[in-house]
């Protein structure tokens, strides 16, 4: 650790070069304000970075289906309602396929993703009237979109998927949609 001698020597050396390194009071204030700003900024940044990591995952996942349901309700045409729902299922399924192929996810997450895919397939089948389902009638499409949101909110397979994998799914959805 450097002792007071070092600072004295440094001070003397600079003085000998013909300029005074002692800053004026306003320069000092400026420097200190800058440091305080950096410290304050760092704290704010830490908060901002920590928030999405904490709030993300399941909440973003739920929001995805809630947003789709809002779009369904905002549309009058049954054909458009169906298209919105179908696209939301397909995008999610695609993201789940991609995640499943990733070496990053654990075996437990793989099982959770499998179940989630099966749940989504059931809903796709019901929407289209496949696999033994009666096609959801046009006048029930709003209610069906609410059903999807509520069923996903209480889906225990989402709870079992880790936060990292859920975030990965959300990122992939954003990339696919773009």
């Amino acid at each position, binding site marked *: 650790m450097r002792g007071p001698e070092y600072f004295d020597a440094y001070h003397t050396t600079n003085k000998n070069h013909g300029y005074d390194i*002692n*800053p004026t*009071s306003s320069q*000092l*204030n400026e420097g*200190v*304000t800058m*440091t*305080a700003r950096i*410290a*304050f900024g760092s*704290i704010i940044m*830490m908060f901002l970075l*920590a928030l999405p990591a904490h709030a993300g995952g*399941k*909440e973003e996942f*739920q*929001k995805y289906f*809630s*947003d789709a*349901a*809002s779009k369904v*309700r905002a549309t009058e045409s049954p054909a458009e309602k169906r298209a919105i729902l179908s696209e939301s299922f397909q995008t999610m399924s695609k993201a789940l396929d991609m995640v499943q192929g990733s070496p990053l996810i654990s*075996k*437990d997450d793989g*099982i*959770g993703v499998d*179940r989630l895919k099966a749940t989504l397939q*059931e809903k796709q089948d*019901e929407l289209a009237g496949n696999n033994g389902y009666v096609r*959801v009638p046009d006048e*029930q499409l709003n*209610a*069906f979109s*609410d*059903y999807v*949101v*509520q*069923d996903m*909110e*209480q889906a*225990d*397979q989402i*709870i*079992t998927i880790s936060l990292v994998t859920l975030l990965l799914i959300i990122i992939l959805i954003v990339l696919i949609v773009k």
Partner: protein
Amino acid sequence: MQDPHSRSVRGAPYSMLFANLHCAALTVLLSSCSADLLVEREAQRAEEDAPAVPYSIVCVIHGDGDYLYHDTRGNEYKADVEALAGAKRVAMRNSRAEVFIFHQKPRKHFLFFFPLQDGEFYYYRNGRLIANELYWRDQGQSHFDPEVGLYRRFRSDDQREMVKMFLYCGHEIPEFDGAGYDASYPDRPFTVHDLADGLQGFTRHSARFDLMVLSTCFGSTPYTIGTLGSSARYIIASPDNLHLSYFDLHSLGRLDISLRDGDVQAFAKKFARLAFDRLTRDIQTAVSVAVFDVDRVQGFLQSVHAVYDHTLTTLQGETQASLPTIERCDCADLPAYVLPAMNKGVDVFYRPARFGRSKHKQNHSGWECWREPVLK
């Protein structure tokens, strides 16, 4: 020449920054302390001039997990925050009751390092807020010790002729394992057994709770009702998934009118009916609310105890990964449970999901079971 003030000038903003941090930390500390002082004074005053209260409600709201849900307009809600608001409304509307509300919150830190208290307690008497303080939840195995401590500190002295109720709002309480129930304590288990232990603390020197409301998913399994039944005369629970908007608590307001005759059984059915009506208005998934007369269901519980216990033992041997793949079902779908006593002491309000494979299922026994995995 060195400016003699440079040191103090340089140090001033730092001092201000640290002073601000200290002030903030002190504010946090003092705010919790001041609540305590207020509590003591208000509690003493309440003791002095309050008439005896004939109704008592203990409400535990678990908020340390994923509790986000959306309404049909796409608005976001936090289930625990909504439940807390509902419980406070009930407390304020009851002019002749004492209401204990425990809000179990996620553990948070002030400036990342200083842990903040993760429980908040409210005590109302005769419609007035007497105490509100922050507390530390159990840091180890959860037996509701801090909650029981607060309950004993504030409860009315005269417990004899009181109608007592216990409400729990939260996710499904696991029957075994239970690790990860609290997001802030991922390694700590919380099971039905732990809740039963906590209830023993609340009811130590008195009779059972007259009514218990389990606002959770899958609350009416034979094991859950059997275990919690030692602390309650009547239990209201949902055999299936319960939407996070929970049971409507409105009917708990004005107990002096709705429970004037002291008929807890009739009140429980009315509560269940209203909760069911409220849920079916907005919810498209299955809605099920069951009322159990604990003494009358003992025969059924004893008959199926061995079968259900065997299933639980089998499930405990399963790997963590395979557990979510094991399905739940109405116990009536399993021949071993279809006994003459099955419906005795159970009132069920049920409406199937509007969509999905189970939409044609018209009845529910009120009992929920596990579909035991087929061994390969």
